[in-house]
């Protein structure tokens, strides 16, 4: 029997056992769709996080006070003890290193913002004029903190705050009270929305000296450093670490992390997560494979006398094996194709419902899902097909 006839005849069989075939195809399709959707979610999350993190700036190096036991971790891991504080003088010293393009010291705190009877607790960032280019922030009105004017009481408002405090007026040039001091609004940030769980529309930015005064501290939370180029990132990291060690009496009590290292960590973790969920989804495919095997075994038992007839008509064992094999192939092909379509449709639905999440199924996952479906189908049919081919023709004809 040639290939075309084998495929046609087995397709006819698949179509005529409608309910049975539909159920298997459905099981297969759900498995494949699960792989596609879950990897779309996993990879979407990875792209989202990586994208958010990249948008923080380019060629960034972060300096944190204290030495975390494990270097290269997420900034939040640096909650260990701080033997020696990071100071504004440290930051100014770093700015003079040759690999450093610019630097912005950072202090973060919460204070009460009041104006015209309105009152609100806001997150306050204390920094310098360099923060704007380093963090790739944009202004919608006015100007950022003026260069070299750390002592002038300026404030930059997040866009939501600007709307809330000055609903019908021009905020730039107005006076506003933060804590106990009065500030002059110099600019308004462009709406940016949430970034890394931090809503920059609801912050205010003031000069670092005022921030230290406000929070009654002379230490820094972070120093953001931008290296001159991509190749300068590692040298900059080493130079900063070295310089601060010298300044801190030879003690390595700061943590220097590159943006790339953090990015790579996120990327790695989320890729592993995606692989993990793909693996879990693949289990459902294996279950579908077992279902195919079971149904094919039942089919062999049901069609015993038919197999006997084919043998009596002179079909060699190989033909019979191939017929059952082709039947499983059709089922898993259909399951794979429908599952692929279903998965992509669901991913599209997710992207529609959550536009910020780029839930595109990665190609390798779609391919692996469909291939696994076909492969499990084929493997699952091996035993039933072999059993059918081995049947004794005389016994088979009598239906035994």
């Amino acid at each position: 029997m040639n290939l075309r006839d084998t495929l046609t005849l087995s397709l006819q069989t698949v179509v005529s056992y409608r309910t049975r075939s539909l159920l298997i195809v459905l099981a297969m399709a759900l498995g494949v769709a699960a792989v596609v959707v879950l990897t779309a979610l996993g990879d979407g999350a990875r792209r989202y996080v990586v994208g958010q993190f990249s948008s923080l700036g380019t060629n960034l190096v972060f300096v944190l006070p204290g030495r975390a036991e494990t270097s290269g971790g997420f900034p939040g891991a640096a909650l260990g003890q701080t033997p020696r504080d990071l100071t504004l003088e440290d930051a100014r010293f770093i700015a003079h290193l040759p690999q450093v393009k610019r630097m912005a010291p950072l202090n973060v705190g919460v204070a009460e913002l009041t104006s015209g009877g309105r009152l609100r607790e806001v997150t306050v960032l204390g920094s310098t004029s360099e923060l704007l280019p380093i963090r790739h922030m944009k202004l919608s009105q006015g100007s950022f903190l003026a260069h070299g004017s750390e002592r002038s009481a300026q404030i930059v408002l997040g866009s939501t705050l600007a709307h809330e405090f000055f609903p019908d007026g021009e905020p730039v040039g107005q006076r506003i009270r933060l804590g106990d001091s009065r500030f002059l609004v110099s600019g308004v940030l462009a709406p940016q929305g949430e970034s890394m769980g931090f809503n920059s529309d609801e912050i205010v930015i003031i000069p670092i000296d005022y921030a230290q005064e406000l929070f009654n501290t002379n230490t820094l939370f972070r120093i953001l450093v931008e290296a001159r180029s991509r190749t300068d990132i590692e040298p900059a990291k080493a130079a900063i670490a070295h310089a601060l060690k010298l300044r801190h009496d030879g003690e390595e009590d700061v943590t220097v992390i590159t943006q790339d290292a953090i990015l790579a960590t996120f990327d790695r973790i989320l890729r592993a997560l995606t692989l993990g969920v793909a693996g879990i989804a693949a289990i459902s495919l294996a279950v579908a494979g077992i279902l195919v095997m079971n149904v094919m075994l039942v089919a062999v038992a049901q069609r015993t006398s038919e197999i006997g007839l084919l043998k009596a008509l002179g079909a060699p064992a190989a033909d019979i094996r191939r017929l059952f094999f082709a039947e499983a192939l059709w089922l898993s092909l259909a399951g794979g194709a429908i599952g692929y379509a279903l998965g992509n449709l669901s991913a599209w639905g997710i992207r529609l419902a959550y536009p910020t999440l780029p839930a595109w199924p990665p190609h390798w996952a779609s391919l692996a899902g469909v291939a696994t479906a076909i492969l499990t189908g084929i493997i699952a049919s091996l035993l039933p097909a072999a059993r059918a081919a081995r049947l004794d023709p005389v016994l088979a004809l009598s239906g035994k």
Partner: protein
Amino acid sequence: MIRLTAITRVFRMGDQEVRALNGIDLDIASGEYVSIMGPSGSGKSTLLNVIGLLDQPNSGRYELDGSDVTDLSETERARVRREKIGFVFQSFHLVPRLTAAENIELPLMLEGIAPAERTARVDAALDAFDLKDRAHHRPAELSGGQRQRVAIARATILRPTALLADEPTGNLDHRIGTEVMELLEGLHHAGTTLIVVTHDRELGARAHRHIAMRDGEIVADEK
């Protein structure tokens, strides 16, 4: 054409041995019309299965068309069955999912004949067996006589040298049974060797050679 020498076929039933065929010697010439009769359990169906290469004897020698087919592999036996043997069964054994025409086409498909030629030969067979208007009906929509005609058309589509029928009228009433026998006899007249297994005396008597079996042995062989 068919030469069986000292053929023995033993089945094991638990710890008991059943000699279904016990040293059978039989010669059937090309073009003969033979009936094999005997009570159930006499070994007549086993004999037909051995002749049709569906079953392999435990000992003895089987020559078909001058060549020894006793020890052929399963694949080779399948080829010989396809090319030289046609089977007609009591229960028709049609594939329920396939139409009459598709059932008749099956052996041509197994033989690997091109679709165009297949259609022509199936059409000719449908004509010859008066099934033209039933071509696209499934077996469930056919009468018993029509089903057996489809089965006979399928058995003869590759022009086998021997047609082996096991109780071909067993599931049919007397009138239809006679029609089917006349059809088979017509094929015999056209040159096909016809071997019919039956326990119906009247049916067996129509053959030109009568073989009687009992307990796995041939007890009478009359022409």
